Protein backbone atom coordinates (compact mmCIF):
# COMPACT_ATOMS: atom_id res chain seq x y z
CA UNK A 1 0.00 0.00 0.00
CA UNK A 2 2.79 2.40 0.97
CA UNK A 3 4.72 1.39 -2.15
CA UNK A 4 1.71 2.20 -4.29
CA UNK A 5 1.38 5.60 -2.68
CA UNK A 6 5.08 6.27 -3.18
CA UNK A 7 4.92 5.28 -6.86
CA UNK A 8 1.82 7.41 -7.34
CA UNK A 9 3.53 10.35 -5.67
CA UNK A 10 6.61 9.95 -7.84
CA UNK A 11 4.53 9.78 -11.02
CA UNK A 12 2.59 12.87 -10.02
CA UNK A 13 5.77 14.75 -9.13
CA UNK A 14 7.35 13.81 -12.44
CA UNK A 15 4.28 15.05 -14.26
CA UNK A 16 4.23 18.31 -12.35
CA UNK A 17 7.89 19.00 -13.11
CA UNK A 18 7.05 19.20 -16.80
CA UNK A 19 3.83 21.18 -16.28
CA UNK A 20 3.41 24.52 -18.01
CA UNK A 21 1.70 27.80 -17.15
CA UNK A 22 -1.08 28.62 -19.57
CA UNK A 23 -1.52 32.23 -20.69
CA UNK A 24 -4.87 33.17 -22.22
CA UNK A 25 -4.88 36.63 -23.78
CA UNK A 26 -7.44 38.86 -25.48
CA UNK A 27 -7.49 42.31 -27.00
CA UNK A 28 -7.84 44.97 -24.37
CA UNK A 29 -9.94 47.55 -26.14
CA UNK A 30 -13.09 47.49 -28.22
CA UNK A 31 -12.11 46.81 -31.79
CA UNK A 32 -13.68 45.65 -35.03
CA UNK A 33 -11.22 42.78 -35.11
CA UNK A 34 -10.75 41.37 -31.62
CA UNK A 35 -7.89 38.95 -31.16
CA UNK A 36 -7.23 36.05 -28.85
CA UNK A 37 -3.95 34.36 -28.12
CA UNK A 38 -2.86 31.61 -25.79
CA UNK A 39 0.33 29.76 -25.06
CA UNK A 40 1.84 27.33 -22.60
CA UNK A 41 5.09 28.43 -21.00
CA UNK A 42 7.19 25.66 -19.53
CA UNK A 43 10.22 26.27 -17.35
CA UNK A 44 12.49 23.26 -17.23
CA UNK A 45 16.11 22.56 -16.37
CA UNK A 46 17.06 23.59 -19.90
CA UNK A 47 15.29 26.94 -19.70
CA UNK A 48 11.95 28.11 -21.04
CA UNK A 49 9.99 26.52 -23.85
CA UNK A 50 6.58 27.06 -25.43
CA UNK A 51 5.13 23.67 -26.36
CA UNK A 52 1.84 25.19 -27.60
CA UNK A 53 0.76 28.58 -28.87
CA UNK A 54 -2.03 29.91 -31.00
CA UNK A 55 -3.57 33.24 -31.93
CA UNK A 56 -6.68 34.12 -33.84
CA UNK A 57 -8.11 37.32 -35.25
CA UNK A 58 -11.86 36.88 -34.89
CA UNK A 59 -13.33 35.87 -38.23
CA UNK A 60 -9.95 36.20 -39.89
CA UNK A 61 -6.46 34.78 -39.95
CA UNK A 62 -4.71 32.88 -37.20
CA UNK A 63 -1.58 30.94 -36.35
CA UNK A 64 -1.06 27.80 -34.32
CA UNK A 65 1.79 25.51 -33.37
CA UNK A 66 -0.59 22.57 -32.92
CA UNK A 67 -0.34 20.16 -35.87
CA UNK A 68 -4.06 19.35 -36.09
CA UNK A 69 -5.17 22.97 -35.69
CA UNK A 70 -6.67 24.61 -38.82
CA UNK A 71 -4.07 27.39 -38.62
CA UNK A 72 -1.13 25.10 -37.92
CA UNK A 73 2.41 25.49 -39.17
CA UNK A 74 3.68 28.28 -36.93
CA UNK A 75 6.53 27.81 -34.50
CA UNK A 76 8.02 29.88 -31.72
CA UNK A 77 11.46 31.02 -32.83
CA UNK A 78 12.44 33.25 -29.90
CA UNK A 79 11.58 33.19 -26.21
CA UNK A 80 12.79 35.88 -23.83
CA UNK A 81 11.67 35.72 -20.21
CA UNK A 82 13.08 38.41 -17.98
CA UNK A 83 11.96 40.14 -14.80
CA UNK A 84 8.28 39.36 -15.21
CA UNK A 85 8.17 40.02 -18.94
CA UNK A 86 7.77 37.52 -21.75
CA UNK A 87 8.57 38.07 -25.40
CA UNK A 88 7.66 35.46 -28.01
CA UNK A 89 8.41 35.64 -31.71
CA UNK A 90 6.45 33.41 -34.08
CA UNK A 91 7.63 32.20 -37.45
CA UNK A 92 6.06 30.17 -40.19
CA UNK A 93 7.57 28.52 -43.21
CA UNK A 94 6.18 29.45 -46.61
CA UNK A 95 7.63 27.78 -49.70
CA UNK A 96 10.79 26.99 -47.81
CA UNK A 97 11.23 30.53 -46.47
CA UNK A 98 11.08 31.38 -42.79
CA UNK A 99 8.73 34.30 -42.24
CA UNK A 100 8.34 36.33 -39.06
CA UNK A 101 4.55 36.27 -38.56
CA UNK A 102 3.87 37.58 -35.08
CA UNK A 103 5.36 38.92 -31.87
CA UNK A 104 3.86 39.00 -28.38
CA UNK A 105 5.27 41.00 -25.48
CA UNK A 106 3.65 40.98 -22.03
CA UNK A 107 4.59 41.93 -18.50
CA UNK A 108 3.15 40.57 -15.26
CA UNK A 109 2.61 42.87 -12.29
CA UNK A 110 1.77 41.62 -8.83
CA UNK A 111 0.05 43.96 -6.39
CA UNK A 112 -1.23 42.45 -3.16
CA UNK A 113 -3.54 39.61 -4.04
CA UNK A 114 -3.91 40.84 -7.59
CA UNK A 115 -1.84 39.81 -10.56
CA UNK A 116 -2.12 41.54 -13.92
CA UNK A 117 -0.55 40.55 -17.21
CA UNK A 118 -0.71 42.87 -20.19
CA UNK A 119 1.22 43.98 -23.22
CA UNK A 120 1.02 44.05 -26.98
CA UNK A 121 0.53 41.60 -29.84
CA UNK A 122 1.62 42.27 -33.39
CA UNK A 123 0.50 40.00 -36.20
CA UNK A 124 2.27 40.72 -39.46
CA UNK A 125 -0.25 41.90 -42.01
CA UNK A 126 -2.97 41.54 -39.39
CA UNK A 127 -2.60 44.42 -36.99
CA UNK A 128 -1.54 45.58 -33.55
CA UNK A 129 -3.36 45.09 -30.28
CA UNK A 130 -2.98 45.98 -26.65
CA UNK A 131 -3.77 42.73 -24.84
CA UNK A 132 -4.34 41.42 -21.36
CA UNK A 133 -3.86 37.87 -20.22
CA UNK A 134 -4.95 35.47 -17.52
CA UNK A 135 -2.50 32.89 -16.24
CA UNK A 136 -3.40 29.39 -15.12
CA UNK A 137 -0.46 28.19 -13.07
CA UNK A 138 0.49 24.57 -12.67
CA UNK A 139 2.81 24.41 -9.72
CA UNK A 140 5.08 21.46 -9.02
CA UNK A 141 3.91 19.46 -6.02
CA UNK A 142 7.06 20.18 -4.03
CA UNK A 143 6.30 23.93 -3.96
Amino acid at each position, binding site marked *: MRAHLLIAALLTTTGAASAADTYTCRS*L*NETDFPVTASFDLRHGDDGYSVPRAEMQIEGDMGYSTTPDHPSNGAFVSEIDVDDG*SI*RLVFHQTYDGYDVDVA*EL*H*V*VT*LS*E*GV*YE*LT*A*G*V*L*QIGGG*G*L*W*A*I*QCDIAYEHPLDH
Partner: protein
Amino acid sequence: MRVAHLFVLGAFMASPAAAAQWMSCTDAIGEASFDYFIADGADFSVSAVTVTARERVWASDPANGPGDPILVGNFHDDVTLSFVDATDEARNKVAELKVFKATEGETTVYGGTLRIAGVGAWVVSCAPTS
Protein backbone atom coordinates in the same frame (compact mmCIF):
# COMPACT_ATOMS: atom_id res chain seq x y z
CA MET B 1 30.24 80.71 -45.77
CA ARG B 2 30.58 76.95 -46.04
CA VAL B 3 31.19 76.77 -42.31
CA ALA B 4 28.00 78.75 -41.72
CA HIS B 5 26.11 76.35 -43.95
CA LEU B 6 27.47 73.40 -41.99
CA PHE B 7 26.28 74.99 -38.75
CA VAL B 8 22.82 75.44 -40.20
CA LEU B 9 22.80 71.84 -41.46
CA GLY B 10 24.00 70.65 -38.06
CA ALA B 11 21.21 72.52 -36.36
CA PHE B 12 18.64 70.80 -38.55
CA MET B 13 20.19 67.37 -37.94
CA ALA B 14 20.10 67.96 -34.18
CA SER B 15 16.42 68.81 -34.27
CA PRO B 16 14.31 66.94 -31.75
CA ALA B 17 13.61 63.30 -32.49
CA ALA B 18 10.48 63.38 -30.35
CA ALA B 19 7.95 66.19 -30.49
CA ALA B 20 6.52 67.36 -27.21
CA GLN B 21 3.27 65.62 -26.41
CA TRP B 22 1.14 64.18 -23.65
CA MET B 23 0.64 60.44 -23.49
CA SER B 24 -2.46 59.25 -21.70
CA CYS B 25 -2.64 55.73 -20.28
CA THR B 26 -5.98 54.54 -18.94
CA ASP B 27 -7.67 51.33 -17.94
CA ALA B 28 -10.67 50.06 -19.89
CA ILE B 29 -13.31 51.61 -17.62
CA GLY B 30 -11.56 54.87 -16.81
CA GLU B 31 -10.98 54.07 -13.18
CA ALA B 32 -7.30 54.97 -13.23
CA SER B 33 -5.00 56.95 -15.47
CA PHE B 34 -1.37 57.94 -15.81
CA ASP B 35 -0.63 60.86 -18.12
CA TYR B 36 2.93 61.95 -18.84
CA PHE B 37 4.36 64.79 -20.86
CA ILE B 38 7.23 63.96 -23.18
CA ALA B 39 9.42 67.01 -23.39
CA ASP B 40 10.72 68.28 -26.69
CA GLY B 41 14.22 66.98 -27.36
CA ALA B 42 16.44 64.40 -28.94
CA ASP B 43 16.31 62.13 -25.89
CA PHE B 44 13.20 60.75 -24.24
CA SER B 45 12.46 62.95 -21.26
CA VAL B 46 9.35 63.18 -19.12
CA SER B 47 8.75 66.59 -17.57
CA ALA B 48 5.30 66.21 -16.00
CA VAL B 49 2.95 63.48 -14.77
CA THR B 50 -0.64 63.44 -13.62
CA VAL B 51 -2.09 60.34 -12.00
CA THR B 52 -5.69 59.57 -11.10
CA ALA B 53 -7.35 56.66 -9.34
CA ARG B 54 -11.08 56.87 -8.73
CA GLU B 55 -11.52 60.21 -6.89
CA ARG B 56 -7.84 60.74 -6.12
CA VAL B 57 -5.50 62.90 -8.16
CA TRP B 58 -1.75 63.45 -8.03
CA ALA B 59 0.00 66.02 -10.20
CA SER B 60 3.58 67.15 -10.64
CA ASP B 61 2.46 70.56 -11.84
CA PRO B 62 -0.55 72.41 -10.40
CA ALA B 63 -1.04 73.91 -13.85
CA ASN B 64 -2.13 70.48 -15.06
CA GLY B 65 -4.83 70.16 -12.46
CA PRO B 66 -5.35 70.05 -8.70
CA GLY B 67 -3.99 67.10 -6.82
CA ASP B 68 -1.47 65.86 -4.30
CA PRO B 69 2.05 66.84 -5.31
CA ILE B 70 4.23 64.23 -6.99
CA LEU B 71 7.52 64.28 -8.85
CA VAL B 72 8.62 62.67 -12.07
CA GLY B 73 10.68 59.62 -11.14
CA ASN B 74 12.70 57.30 -13.33
CA PHE B 75 11.71 56.97 -16.94
CA HIS B 76 12.86 55.01 -19.95
CA ASP B 77 11.82 54.54 -23.52
CA ASP B 78 13.09 52.28 -26.28
CA VAL B 79 11.70 50.52 -29.32
CA THR B 80 9.61 48.06 -27.32
CA LEU B 81 9.23 49.39 -23.78
CA SER B 82 8.33 52.59 -21.95
CA PHE B 83 8.23 53.03 -18.22
CA VAL B 84 7.64 56.09 -16.08
CA ASP B 85 7.61 56.36 -12.29
CA ALA B 86 6.07 59.04 -10.11
CA THR B 87 7.35 59.65 -6.60
CA ASP B 88 6.61 61.72 -3.55
CA GLU B 89 9.02 64.38 -2.32
CA ALA B 90 10.95 61.76 -0.32
CA ARG B 91 11.40 59.83 -3.59
CA ASN B 92 9.13 57.02 -2.51
CA LYS B 93 7.41 55.51 -5.50
CA VAL B 94 3.78 56.62 -5.77
CA ALA B 95 2.96 55.13 -9.16
CA GLU B 96 4.71 53.13 -11.82
CA LEU B 97 3.71 52.69 -15.43
CA LYS B 98 5.20 49.95 -17.58
CA VAL B 99 3.98 49.51 -21.13
CA PHE B 100 5.20 47.56 -24.11
CA LYS B 101 4.69 48.97 -27.55
CA ALA B 102 4.40 47.57 -31.04
CA THR B 103 4.75 49.63 -34.19
CA GLU B 104 3.67 48.96 -37.73
CA GLY B 105 4.01 51.76 -40.24
CA GLU B 106 2.86 54.93 -38.53
CA THR B 107 0.71 53.12 -35.98
CA THR B 108 1.96 52.35 -32.49
CA VAL B 109 0.00 50.44 -29.86
CA TYR B 110 0.82 50.58 -26.15
CA GLY B 111 -0.30 48.03 -23.57
CA GLY B 112 0.88 47.32 -20.05
CA THR B 113 0.32 47.85 -16.37
CA LEU B 114 -0.14 50.71 -13.92
CA ARG B 115 0.48 50.33 -10.20
CA ILE B 116 -0.37 53.00 -7.67
CA ALA B 117 1.16 52.22 -4.29
CA GLY B 118 -1.42 51.33 -1.69
CA VAL B 119 -4.28 51.97 -4.09
CA GLY B 120 -4.32 49.28 -6.75
CA ALA B 121 -3.15 48.03 -10.11
CA TRP B 122 -4.69 48.19 -13.56
CA VAL B 123 -4.16 46.99 -17.09
CA VAL B 124 -3.79 50.07 -19.29
CA SER B 125 -3.37 51.12 -22.88
CA CYS B 126 -1.95 54.45 -23.97
CA ALA B 127 -2.40 56.99 -26.72
CA PRO B 128 -1.00 60.46 -27.45
CA THR B 129 -3.45 63.21 -26.57
CA SER B 130 -1.77 66.27 -28.03
